[in-house]
């Protein structure tokens, strides 16, 4: 469950950047991950990772693009604003996982310019204003798309997100709850996630923990602490809640912040 402190084979930044255009596809794939993981914000690395979004060499048997996936993930971690246009194009890649990674990175980059493209993909799940009745429709990475729209505060697109509150896949529902909360500030959506923390399925409780932490929903703090799941995940969720309670220019801690930290202490 825990990653070792130092799990990486010995590799230098220069080697990793060279590997991106080297002959070994496995090393390209690994180096794209590595550069993101260790946040190597080198212009050359970013340039090559951006080019990698158009890679044609590394294909899976069913047509996926593994190198593009890792490159898309890394660019978000590297805060590579210059890669935004290429990531928006990657939202139209035929590989689901590339689209998912691109949506997640555009979210991390705070790219409001990506909103129209994200909504266009999300609308693929709708017929007019209703959910596509094909059950369960998982053609698009709906959860990642909605999470990005929520974080990017795409308030004018609430109508595209709302139908997914009834999606048959709980994970997609939670993403809709999370985005609707971010877009409307309505506590009812946050409370749906609190309910989800009490569900019967551990995987789904874990997913709900991640969502409730991402929106930093203070009323969920006690429910997070009581969720039947690993303390590590509860602590990460509470960290998300805590950080929303901290004002950037004040050393004064709010009551809410202190309450969250007391809960965190009890889970260490």
């Amino acid at each position, binding site marked *: 469950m*825990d990653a070792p402190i130092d799990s990486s084979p010995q590799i230098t930044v220069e080697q990793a950047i060279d590997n991106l255009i080297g002959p070994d596809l496995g090393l390209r794939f690994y180096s794209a991950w590595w550069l993101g993981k260790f946040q190597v914000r080198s212009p050359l690395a970013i340039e090559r990772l951006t080019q990698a979004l158009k890679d044609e060499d590394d294909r899976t048997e069913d047509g996926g693009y593994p190198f593009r996936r890792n490159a898309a993930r890394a660019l978000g971690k590297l805060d590579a604003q210059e890669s935004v246009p290429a990531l928006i194009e990657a939202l139209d890649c035929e590989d689901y996982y590339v689209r998912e990674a691109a949506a997640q990175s555009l979210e991390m980059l705070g790219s409001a310019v990506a909103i129209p493209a994200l909504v266009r993909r999300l609308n693929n799940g709708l017929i007019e204003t209703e959910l596509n009745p094909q059950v369960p429709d998982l053609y698009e990475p709906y959860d990642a798309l909605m999470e990005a729209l929520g974080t990017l505060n795409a308030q004018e697109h609430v109508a595209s997100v709302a139908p997914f509150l009834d999606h048959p896949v709980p994970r997609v529902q939670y993403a809709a709850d999370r985005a609707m909360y971010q877009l409307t500030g309505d506590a009812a959506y946050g409370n749906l996630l609190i309910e989800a923390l009490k569900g019967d399925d*551990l995987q789904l409780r874990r997913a709900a923990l991640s969502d409730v932490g991402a929106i930093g929903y203070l009323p969920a703090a006690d429910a997070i602490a009581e969720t039947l799941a690993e*303390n590590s995940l509860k602590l990460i969720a509470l960290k998300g809640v805590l950080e929303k309670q*901290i004002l950037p220019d004040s050393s004064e801690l709010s009551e809410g912040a*202190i309450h969250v930290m007391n809960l965190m202490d009890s889970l260490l």
Partner: protein
Amino acid sequence: MNTATKEQLLQAIEEAATATTLADAVKALAEAQIPETIPNLIRALNYNNPGAAVAAVDGLIALGKDSVPDLLNLLDDYNYGARAWALRALSGIGDPRSHHLLVDTALNDFALSVRRAAARGLGSIHWEWIAPEEAQTLQKTSLDALCQICHDPEWIVRYAGISGLECLGQQPNTEMRSIALHHLQQAQQTDTETAVRARAQLAIDRLT
């Protein structure tokens, strides 16, 4: 529930067919607080069932000192998930017999959740259970370890180290308190994570 016998409680664990019923059965056993079932509670840490593990840890902590020898003896055989839970139980009990183990674990264990639990435990040892001179020597070791832990690569381990430093800073020893405060102020000003800086701020507020 309190009327169930030890045998009935153990049988419920044997017969549990789902993760939820297993967690409930362990919880019932833990709440019964029967010292002879300590080995059963320790075994429950190994079920890969977070609900059962949480209940077992709470039960072991409530049983206190009596759990410590078994926990110390059995720790070596356990997988890392179970170790984390066992360490959490030892951290919660705060028996000075586990001090050496907690220091070594907090500094050197490869699993971050285990370092986290040990760091927390270092701050909450029942010093009054041992002679004052011995306590002072051990506290010095704790302080050195916790100051190092405030530079761990993982935010949650640093966070736990800070909470440990806060507890240690509350001991009636002004030199130790001022060293703890110095490290807390450093973390409050320089840590890269908002949550860690906030926890350092809280510790400083409570110590000054």
